[in-house]
């Protein structure tokens, strides 16, 4: 195994783990809010959260580059205050990846909460427990399968990302070069043996993750959970 191969796998793994970890922290409160809020513009927020599922990755990648650019408000503020530039860095790719995978985390969690009988939450509240205690002790433990599904799906989806990473991160070995991009690169260079190795690894990982999702959800039909 050569170093660049391992390096690429390491970047891929790092991105997937970090994205999933950040998203579980963001995803749970977002899913809670979507399930229980009666805010009027909720459908608009729901649509916004789900946008990455239908938008071409290049569109998200393009907007991220625009936002990151020091010539614009956010990028300029980052550059001036912290001397940070996000375009073509791992952190930049990570932020884009979090936004791009958001629906894959939120949707299963939202579904899990929606399918819980409302009486669970109401029973806990009438027994004198706060919303936070109810959330951690009653709601979360009863949507375990949804959490596993959300984590596996987000992880798998991040590993399979191509367009966003390419647009935002370029293809910098050891920094932003992930396996899916490396495959494209190796094929362009007619280096089929290397492409094959990457492809096989992605294939096996995705299979294991999806098999996990389907087996934890075997009681319910998995498509309903996803």
């Amino acid at each position, binding site marked *: 195994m050569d170093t660049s191969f391992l390096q690429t796998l390491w970047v891929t793994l790092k991105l997937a783990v970090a994205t999933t970890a950040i998203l579980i922290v963001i995803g749970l409160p977002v899913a809670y809010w979507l399930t229980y809020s009666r805010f009027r513009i909720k459908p608009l927020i729901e649509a916004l959260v789900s946008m990455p599922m239908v938008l071409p990755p290049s569109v998200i990648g393009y907007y991220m580059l625009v936002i990151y650019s020091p010539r614009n408000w956010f990028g300029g503020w980052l550059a001036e205050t912290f001397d940070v530039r996000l375009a073509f860095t791992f952190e930049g790719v990570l932020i884009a990846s979090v936004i791009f995978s958001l629906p894959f985390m939120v949707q299963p969690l939202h579904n899990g909460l929606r399918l819980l*009988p409302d*009486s*669970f939450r*109401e*029973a*806990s*509240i*009438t*027994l*004198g*427990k*706060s919303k936070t205690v109810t959330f951690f*002790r*009653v709601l979360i*433990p*009863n949507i375990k399968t949804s959490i596993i599904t959300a984590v596996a799906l987000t992880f798998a989806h991040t590993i399979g990302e191509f367009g966003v990473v390419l647009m935002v991160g370029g293809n910098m070995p050891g920094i932003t070069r992930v396996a899916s991009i490396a495959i494209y690169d190796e094929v362009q260079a007619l280096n089929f043996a290397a492409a094959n190795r990457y492809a096989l690894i992605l294939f096996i990982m995705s299979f294991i993750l999806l098999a996990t999702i389907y087996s934890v959800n075997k009681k319910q039909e998995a498509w309903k959970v996803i």
Partner: protein
Amino acid sequence: MEGNIIRIDVEKLMLTVNGKVNLAFNTQFNTGDLVALFGPSGAGKTTLLRILAGLVNPDRGVIKMGNTIWFDSDKKINIAPQSRNISLMFQDYALFPNMTVEGNIEYAQPEKDNTAVEELLSVFGLSEFRKRKPNALSGGQRQRVALARAIARKPQLLLLDEPLSALDIDMRVQLQNEILKAHQLSGATTIMVSHDLNEVFRLATQVICIEYGSVNRKGKPEEVFSDNNISGKVQITGQIVRISKQDTVNIVTVITGNNKIIKVIAFDNDIENLNIGDTVLVFSKAFNPIITRLKPG
């Protein structure tokens, strides 16, 4: 005296299967009573329980628990469900599937108290199931866990939403005792939604009949459900399932609360106001009833 009175005067526009109904409920009762809310589906019984629990806000009105105001639309007071010191037992029991029987009871306690948990487990005959999850229990066992959990909270007001509706008839009779036990043990005022006359007669000290969102009768069960001029020796309540004509008389078939069929002969003018589905009282004055025990214990 005000300290012992629960006063409810609320209005709420509800959307029901029968369309919009204005729930206008004004009554009061003494603390320590076991009150049954009786009436057809869609009458507003469950909504009223939810209003008392603080899960639904009335459009206007006042709820006063002794000297404490729980809700007052004019003064903009609305105490959160968490601070109302109530327990609401849901129709589906709402036991938490991730916790054991013991865990469910412990969760409801305001402060951890192992002795109280032990006591509740043994009073409700749950000691041997303590480590089981709710999914591994029968309907009757779940009902007992739900009651034990409701009491573990030490509520001032115990709200039971059709506590026995999910059970079969034999089980119901047995578990009526558990409800009485829960009521006495907690020392709370209990309000129970029911459309089972049997249950109301057996348990309630007060009954409030609700129809189309308002109270139409209230009082002691025997006062509410029978005309005062009836001095029958045997009184059985049931529902009319069939009215058939035979020669010059009619045969009215009534099914009683414990699924027994009674046929009553009635003349044309007797059945003028009777329809299939009506809840009726069958009484007899002429015979001396004889009583005998059916089952030991």
